[in-house]
């Protein structure tokens, strides 16, 4: 039987998806796309995928993607575009959106369990990478400010 282009149904578990871009990066055909716009990370993906691969399902760190076989006798549903969005979190200092709220939450829970609640890594989770670097520079300089410069 001839291989039809639309073979498998893409099902996204929105409870599990936390808005990383592993699936978008993994797709060899670049079918899954994402954009960060106005406080929301929007994903776009086809509802049916004809490619014989499961790169997106394998890459997903939270197993939110299910690829369901469409039986050959079943009438093909119309190809629609799946869209879903996750709210972005903003940097506490500069206000720039740098990751999704769900990733921030899950990482701070994970790091608190691993490193203890008083760790530096946990304090800096609400900051964007650029503000983390500024904060670190400030910390390094203030740690040595009281000492006279010993070098000529």
């Amino acid at each position, binding site marked *: 039987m001839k291989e039809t282009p639309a073979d498998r149904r893409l099902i996204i578990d929105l409870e599990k998806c936390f808005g990383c871009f592993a699936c978008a990066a993994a797709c060899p055909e670049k079918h899954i796309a994402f954009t960060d716009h106005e406080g929301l990370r929007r994903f776009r993906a086809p509802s049916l995928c004809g490619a014989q691969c499961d790169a997106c399902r394998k890459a997903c760190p939270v197993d939110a993607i299910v690829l369901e076989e469409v039986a050959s006798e079943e009438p093909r549903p119309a190809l629609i575009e799946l869209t879903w969005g996750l709210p972005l979190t903003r940097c506490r200092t500069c206000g720039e959106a740098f990751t999704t709220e769900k990733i921030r939450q899950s990482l701070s829970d994970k*790091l608190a369990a691993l490193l203890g609640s008083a760790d530096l890594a946990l304090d800096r989770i609400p900051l964007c*990478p650029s503000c983390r670097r500024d904060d*670190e520079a400030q910390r390094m300089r203030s740690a040595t400010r009281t000492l006279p410069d010993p070098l000529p």
Partner: protein
Amino acid sequence: MNAFLHVDFRRCTGCFACEAACRTAHGGACRVHLAFADGLPVPLMCRQCENSPCAAVCPEEALVWDKTHGVVLLVERCTRCGLCAVACPFGVLSVDPFGRPNVVKCDLCLGRRAEGKRPACVLTCPTEAITDEPDRPLKRRRLAGSVPPIAARPFSESLPAPMGKEGGVQGGFRGKNPR
């Protein structure tokens, strides 16, 4: 000694030579970042933490710590989910979902070290603010005279004189509590 780059940021003049060298050595994105605190430059790069948050959060265990190479990325395991970039407390790690390399992070110039060369930023820094020799900053300060050299003062001089002699422990005690 664990592998990491030693930064004496008081020597940094903020000339951005390290950033330029890094870009030239690796092509594309820069792995050294000059951050400024009240106008004073601080070069920041991956610190190759032993218990690193980036390696802890990686769902695929693609970041592993090694004594001689620091935190190493295993490219074939990485899915580019970007969690390590959010976890890094120093903001020196970034993930590119579509370009190459996938994780932009200081690897202590792994390719150059394989050829027997030293990291590009170390060779380029005009004031030796970045170095890969752990004892270099201390050696330099000894030469400048700000830290006394180890051999200048024998440790026995700083110890109290032995018991029974003039100025010894007994003498000190009497001096403190005069009759």
